[in-house]
């Protein structure tokens, strides 16, 4: 006869077979987390605006509600070696696409790279972070807007830290003092693993961002 004890054994056996649950396998290698997202304003003519300016540092946003916890009137920056690696790769790709680097006062486009070390990318972070660099920065502060597109896809949750690159158009300031971001790039997963691996993946991912953005040529 089939008994309750047998049923318990049977259920246990089947459940043991199922082991992994709803999400049986997670990424094994750091590279598996690498992701590149690009998004842009389809109404903007990039071919008519091909001069750009890049800062010499990359800001670090930790998610703290206190923008300036050390009180030095400046945001935190990522390690300068890492910053130069990123900036050089952005520069190399833009130059290869026929763009020309100039100073921030005359550039068509100003490119703002920032690193989010916590759990998610904040597309509307405080403008204060760029007050040290952006020309014409007013004391009152500005905001961002993303003309004609949502900068982020509709997602359920986020995981690790990311590099956000915003390509802004200073001549496009609107009446509400919002800065248009014509191209957005998010590179994710770069801060994990050994340094040589990180460097290689930074270059590869930034190259991929431009590969999948042919409208920047």
């Amino acid at each position, binding site marked *: 006869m089939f008994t309750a004890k047998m049923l318990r054994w049977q259920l246990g056996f089947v459940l043991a077979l199922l082991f992994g649950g*709803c999400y049986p396998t997670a990424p094994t290698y750091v590279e598996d987390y690498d992701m590149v997202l690009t998004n842009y304003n389809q109404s903007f003519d990039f071919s008519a605006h091909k001069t750009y300016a890049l800062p010499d540092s990359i800001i670090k946003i930790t998610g703290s509600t206190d923008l300036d916890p050390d009180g030095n009137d400046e945001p935190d920056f990522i390690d300068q070696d890492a910053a130069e690696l990123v900036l050089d790769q952005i520069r190399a790709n833009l130059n290869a696409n026929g763009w020309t680097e100039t100073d921030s006062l005359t550039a068509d486009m100003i490119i703002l790279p920032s690193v989010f070390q916590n759990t998610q990318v904040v597309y509307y972070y405080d403008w204060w972070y760029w007050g040290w660099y952006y020309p014409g920065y007013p004391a009152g502060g500005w905001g961002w807007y993303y003309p004609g597109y949502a900068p982020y896809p509709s997602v359920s949750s986020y995981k690790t830290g990311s590099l956000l690159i915003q390509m802004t158009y200073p001549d496009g300031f609107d009446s509400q003092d919002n800065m248009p971001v014509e191209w957005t790039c998010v590179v994710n997963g770069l801060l994990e693993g050994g340094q040589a691996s990180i460097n290689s993946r930074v270059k590869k991912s930034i190259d991929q961002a431009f590969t999948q953005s042919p409208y920047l040529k």
Partner: protein
Amino acid sequence: MKKLYTFLILLALPLGMMAQDIQHVSVQYCFGVGTGSTGDFISKASFRGISLDYKNFGYSDKVALGLDFGWNTFFKKADYDTYTSDDGSTSISGTQYRYLNVAPMLATVDYFFQSSESYVRPFAGLGIGTMFSTRTVDMGLYRFETDKWHFAMKPQAGIWVGFDDATKFSLTAEYMYGAKTKDTDSRQYFMLNAGLVFTPN
């Protein structure tokens, strides 16, 4: 030779005492393969699945009315690739981890071709009800997840083989179909289930 005798004795077991059994519960391991849009999303077979089925022969010795509850997990790691939105404004490159969890809940009716006195009982039937599905794509820092209820139905065919008066082996093939919704594709997959059927005391 002793094993052969044992096997033959098992085959010849008289199971006339099964006649009075009206209610049956089965627990089955489910192997699934996605088809259609489900197969396009995850082509790999699912080895994670379970079903809990109830059948009642109160109406007829050959007709069982029942309820089926199931759960299957499909998974696939898709190689690094670039995906672009329909309007062309967004492109995402990365390695995708795709998951599909489905939990059908169906009312069933099955016709058994042999009476309950038979040792081997093939059957065929239909199920109709609902299915809850969760479709998940993990890519870098993002998780895209869609939860939906679907109208669901399935044809099925199987066989029961008796062990003793209250325990049987069950093997079932079924094609599960969860209809598309406004926001999601249909969920469809072929399943092969194996398990045990027992008569609750």
